[in-house]
């Protein structure tokens, strides 16, 4: 018995000693609820202004995520293709899709109730504007998408789609609400990246967004927007974005790190010397420098040439430079580069514009990165002074302080012109075409000054373009251009063409550089222009009517089935 007791005691004392040791060392080890991350804040500590900042930044990145595709399809930029069916992977729209739903929508839901508590109407108005823009654009690019079941988190992990038409209606309701929010004085956002808290300008932008929405669905079966459009137009001077001071645009800065705040395309084209990432579109550049008998001064702002003569480059740099045009390219079609003579290549000429044809999917040849870069407007790059020097890195031009041109005054003029043309008011349409062109030229040529760096329009030593000549004749050239296109004279393009809508849209495209959204929408809405450059590799022009849903969405959402092909039209496209 005693033995057993000793044993017991030994056990007890051993356990005691070890337990003491153990607990001395391990009390923090026994904490079993460490659930709040030290690496982020909790939603309770959010700040309304910071939410609004995030939404505004996402407005910029959302737009940036859709603008290129629209430009590529409308030949404003080069499309790799080679066919429409495989031009884009189904991941193409993932970025803007997630920007819209998992950033803009969720931040909207989290911010608005808190702003409502405080009565911060302007914040709410801006949030509604941004959400409406994102919704409209998702419908424009993808057709029917989730809306009423979207962004509910755990409450619905498989959101179903709503019809595009109903989403347009919902966006219109948000737009109407936003106008009301802007109509009352309220706390200004600490950072309004668009209008510096100017509610009148926000109202103009909201009205312009409404005009865009209603015009866009004018062909839809149940559209009944004429009165509203007419009303918006009749109050244009006071209610719409009609001059460039009212432009709705996302502005970038010049800071290149922490945070890099430059235009993304500037970073791609100018970060490294002589290493241009994108190809410009041959057909688009030709519209500025080869197709008209007048000078279009925007060319010097849109495009930056690094090479004075492309025709002396060898085949390895421009692989098409010894090829014949495909049979389905007419003789008037640009092929390979501006000035290329495919019958007798040795007779080719070149003014240095070096882009690619629609759907040319050749690999990147060893061309020294010297192809034509995007220029000063709108990405904040270098003004083309004809010095033909290679891009020398990120300290050029506006240093990336470009814009995303989302709703510019010129666009309003072109939209009004279209509405009038559709309604048979040809002369009014012409006037708005002319004023739209004037706005576009004013915007582009004044862009460096607008960005606070007029000196970025520089004429360096070695420039083949004379500063005095260029600037001295600038306004005369602009006037001549407008007169040539939209003048009252009998020989103006407007007065000589039977395809006035084609002309109007063509000129709209030339003003839209940087905004593929309006170009792609306008192309599908008007079916103009009808003579865009065909794909290089096929006669089939079964253009993308809407984009595929993002693959990750389809893979993970059992309520969403992928479209059968890229020819599915959105609701307003009849």
């Amino acid at each position: 018995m005693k033995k057993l007791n000793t044993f017991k005691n030994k056990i007890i004392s051993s356990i005691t000693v070890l337990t003491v040791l153990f607990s001395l060392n391990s009390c923090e080890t026994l904490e079993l609820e460490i659930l709040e991350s030290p690496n982020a804040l909790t939603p309770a500590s959010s700040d309304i202004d910071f939410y609004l900042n995030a939404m505004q930044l996402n407005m910029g990145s959302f737009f940036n995520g859709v603008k290129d595709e629209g430009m590529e399809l409308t030949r404003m930029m080069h499309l790799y293709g080679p066919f429409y069916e495989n031009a884009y992977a189904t991941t193409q729209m993932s970025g803007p899709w997630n920007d819209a739903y998992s950033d803009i929508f969720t931040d909207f839901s989290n911010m608005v109730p808190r702003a409502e508590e405080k009565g911060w109407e302007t914040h709410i108005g801006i949030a509604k504007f941004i959400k409406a823009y994102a919704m409209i654009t998702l419908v424009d690019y993808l057709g029917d998408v989730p809306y009423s079941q979207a962004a509910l988190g755990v409450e619905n992990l498989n959101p179903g789609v709503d019809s595009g038409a109903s989403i347009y209606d919902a966006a219109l309701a948000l737009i109407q609400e936003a106008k009301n929010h802007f109509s009352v004085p309220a706390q200004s956002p600490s950072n309004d990246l668009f209008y510096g808290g100017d509610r009148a300008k926000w109202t103009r932008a909201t009205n312009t967004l409404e005009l865009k929405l209603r015009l866009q669905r004018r062909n839809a079966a149940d559209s009944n927007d004429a009165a509203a459009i007419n009303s918006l137009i009749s109050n244009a001077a006071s209610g719409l974005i009609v001059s460039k001071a009212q432009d709705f645009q996302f502005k970038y800065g010049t800071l290149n790190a922490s945070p890099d705040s430059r235009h993304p395309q500037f970073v791609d084209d100018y970060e490294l010397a002589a290493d241009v990432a994108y190809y410009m579109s041959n057909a688009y550049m030709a519209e500025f420098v080869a197709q008209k008998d007048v000078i279009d001064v925007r060319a010097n702002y849109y495009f930056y040439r690094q090479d004075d003569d492309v025709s002396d480059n060898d085949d390895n740099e421009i692989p098409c430079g010894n090829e014949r045009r495909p049979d389905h390219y007419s003789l008037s079609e640009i092929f390979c580069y501006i000035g290329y003579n495919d019958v007798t290549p040795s007779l080719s000429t070149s003014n240095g514009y070096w882009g690619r044809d629609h759907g040319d999917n050749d690999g990147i040849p060893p061309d020294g990165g010297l192809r034509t870069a995007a220029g000063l407007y709108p990405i904040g790059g270098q003004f083309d002074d004809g010095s033909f020097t290679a891009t020398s890195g990120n300290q050029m031009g506006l240093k990336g302080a470009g814009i995303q041109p989302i709703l510019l005054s010129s666009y309003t003029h072109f939209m009004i012109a279209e509405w009038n043309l559709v309604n048979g008011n040809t002369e009014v349409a012409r006037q708005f075409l002319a004023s739209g062109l004037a706005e576009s030229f004013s915007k582009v040529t004044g862009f460096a000054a607008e960005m606070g760096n007029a000196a970025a329009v520089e004429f360096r030593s070695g420039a083949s373009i004379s500063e005095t000549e260029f600037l001295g004749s600038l306004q005369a050239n602009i006037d001549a251009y407008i007169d040539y296109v939209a003048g009252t004279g009998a020989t103006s393009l407007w007065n000589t063409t039977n395809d006035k809508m084609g002309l109007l849209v063509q000129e709209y495209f030339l003003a839209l550089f940087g905004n593929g959204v309006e170009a792609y929408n306008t192309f599908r809405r008007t079916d103009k222009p009808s003579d865009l450059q065909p794909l290089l590799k096929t006669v089939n022009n079964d253009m993308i009517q809407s984009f595929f849903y993002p693959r990750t969405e389809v893979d993970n959402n059992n309520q969403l089935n992928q479209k059968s092909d890229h020819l599915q039209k959105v609701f307003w496209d009849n």
Partner: protein
Amino acid sequence: MKITRIFFVFLLSAGLAFGQKTVTGVVSDPNGLPLPGATVLISGTTSGVTTDFDGNYSIEVEEGVSLVFSFVGYETQSVVVGSQNNLNITLSEGNQLSEVVVTALGLEREARSLGYAVTTVGSEEIEQKGVADVARTLTGKVAGVNITNTTATSGSGTNIIIRGMTSITGSNQPLFVVDGVPFNSSTNGESGTFWNGITESSRFLDLDPNSIEKVDVLKGLNATVLYGQQGRNGVILITTKNGAGAKPSAKGTEVSVSHSTFINEPVLPDYQNDYGGGFHQLFGFFFSNGGPNFDPAINDPRQFGSYFLREDANNVYVKHPYDYIANRSLVEPEFSDIVGTEYAYKNYRGVENFFENGLVNTTSINLRSTGDNGFLNMSFGRTDDEGFTPNNRLRKTNFGLGGAGTLENGIKINGTLNYANTDYTTPPIAASLGSGSVSTYTSSIFGDVMYTPRSVDLMGLPYQTSDGRSIYYRSGNDIQNPRWTAENAFDKELVNRVFGSFGLAYDINDNWSISYKYGIDNTSQYSQHAQNKGGVDGNATGIYVTGDEITTIQNHNFTLSFNQQLTDEISLGGLVGTSANRQTFTGRYTTNENQLVFGVLKPFNFVSQSVGSFDAEQNIYGAFGDLSFSYNDYLYLNVTGRQDWSSTMEAENNSLFYKGASISFIASDVIPALSGDVVNYAKLRVGYGESAGFANPYRTRSLLSLNAKAFDQGSGVIQANTTSNTLGNRALQPELLSEIEIGIDTRLFNFLNFNVSAYDKETTNLITTRTLPGSTGYTSTTVNAGKLNVKGIEVDWDADLINNGNLRWNLYGNFTAEESLIVSLGEGVEEFTYTPVVSSARPQNYAIVGYPLGMMKANVRQTNDAGEFLIDDDGFYIATTEPELVGDPNPDWTTGITNSLSWKGLSLDFTWQYRHGGDMFSQDAATLVGRGVLNPGTNREGLYVLDGVNKNTGQVNTTQITAINYGFDVFSFGPGELQIFDATTIRLSEVNLSYDFPRSLMEKTPFGSLTATLTGINLFYDAVNVPDVVNFDSNTLSTGVGNAMGLSFITGPSSRRVGLTLKATF
């Protein structure tokens, strides 16, 4: 009572006085080699001695009493002491009868009692292999363990998967336990980016392979139940020479010293030597090597166009590449003397000259003193490993001290304390798609050097301007000169690490004992990623990223164990215990961009700074029990259970109970037919085990991301907060793994040991990072979704073919086959990819229901309904938009065979390894063949017509393409399926030739023994289905440690190491 006791004492001493005598002798193995540390016990008592280093013993004993001689791994022998004073004993090698194996928590169990497979690898297979990474020394040596080098870069990480992957998005790396305490084996990295993960070391690199006594690998869940959820991916138990588990040695002092020197030589592709840079046989300073023949007798000046200057009998001379640099500020005025000079068009062998043979020097010293009541051991190790890539280096210093002893009051104490200093630096080695780096964060040295055209004078051209910019042969200067990269960019990891353990134990009585062990592992890692300004890839303005990371693991283990012989037949053993494990991680990071003065990599020299941090802590608390019965030493039953609580999950879901049971039945002891000359021994075993998996920290709550530097339009930096895209999941539960394992261990024909295990493992409630449809408002969450199954078979065998004293030939090997199957991925999900996309032509790993984990998908050639390939008007294949299945990266089976021959002091062993099947994507093959620096046997001036029909016309394709286009547009940049290869590989993985200097020779020296060993690692390999000239090594993983498989993106050549080791004892 008192009188009785006195009487007994008297009787006893009288007897001692009469019969007592001293017996001495030597205990040796069947080869005559002495066995140091063998136990000599007086039968029926606990008194005895151990043999010294030379196997000598001396014991006072009575005549007529039995002495019991035993040694781990040998059959115990009992001898009655007669009149002799000298008793030399030869112990025969044991089969599994008496072998003792270390199992979970360091418990020593008789091998025969185990219901599961444990593989032990001894120090001789680990030490002095010219490799600083202990995991790499284990490659191919353990059935069921798949070890993959990420690259051959010295210091790079190593991927270890035991019995297949059981988690899709979680970690599948095993738990390392060093001297009884959990050991941090993670890969940290300041970049945290997938495509740069390869740069990071695995932290088991901090162990010194030369101080390791042995490694036991616990593979199945039944074997690892007691380690809790951390052991679910298998456990690598490492016993160091400092650890209390080290094998007992003879009393006295022993000093051993070894030193090895290895040459580390890259295995480069077999470059062709006839053609230089250009395209379509036309010369140009291009990426591609499709230019004219070097021989002026064969080439034609017209092939050089306007580049041509003159030719002589040996070479054509062209204008200098720096004449063509578009950005003239790179060239003028400083290289004006080069501009305008002629440049010989010849084979400069740039790549071969760029790499150099590395040198690996390893020294290790071990000091040991063993006394009556314990031992003290000190180890020192130093490795200096120069890689074959310029400025790749690994330096490592290890100190360790350990000991164990019994105090007078019976308390046993033991402890170890280790310090490791690891200093690793490499130029950036991020994955590459054929040129430059995939990661926008960094450049890649291999991505810029491996495809260097033969005519580029890599080592002769200036590579840096005086203001520090990279300059190279292309007119756009768009390739970062690899020499510039080697000089100006690096990733470094400097690790200071302290780990060790403190243990107390006490035998309460013969049956009960109690123990406590505290383990600590503190890793402090200072990481740097830098590139001076003036580069082309990554940040051209200069970048300097630093990371301070501290990982701490504390572990308490408390056990009460007992052991009792209940009857003659039945014995019972068991333990109960608790363990508390705490892991904390703190990381502080700075990113500095826009360098001011070239070359100075300090934060003050940068314009912009941003900071980041990451902290995490996790506690796991467990209570466990283990009960084992044995019946008549032929039937064993073991039952285990453990309850775990984890701090990472919500209170209602934070614990899980799991259990295991196993039976071992020594059939040969019961069934006479199994105990003859054919079957000598047969054991059947069956085991079932479970384990839990808890989520990583902070997966249950949603977060708000704050960005203090969100944007600057020009009027100051603004801030933003946004709802995190990761949705917290409060309902998250632990995942449950279960495994059933059956096996048979046999000894046949008195010379062949043959052991087979088969297992079937399943994970349910898989904790998976799931991509959410963006329309939910979030992009990812952590869910319990799906079921994954892994089945496999493992064989270990060894055969003593010849064993006649002087000559011995032993053959041994292993075989592994396993297959995983994704049973489900949760409702509505049929597949997802868990590796990022780089381009539609490059594969990603997928989890697809009904397939093994890791299937590769990439775009493929479009076909028509008849299955014919569609060809475009230019004569090329047309790629699909959507990815299709292109390969299964899981090998069908792998095997290794070692021949071990010894004759007197001379021994030779060599190991062949073979991998059968499993697909790999090789960017190396695609790029190097496609760009024409390799010649796989094609006629590069020929024309090809791809098999298929024209997409537009429907007619059979007749459009010719050139060999250069075939290489470039089809093989190199065509649809992804064309770059997938079967990765069957045969490899001579290791050869050792060693010589033990005879003892007779040593007698007059201070040495106790001296051994010289010549070792070759990876001397030969051939991936038989990849073009030979590529010298592709399937033992690579460009994506670093993780769950990706079969992806090789130009992360450097393989290497072979040859070296000499001298080992001496004093």
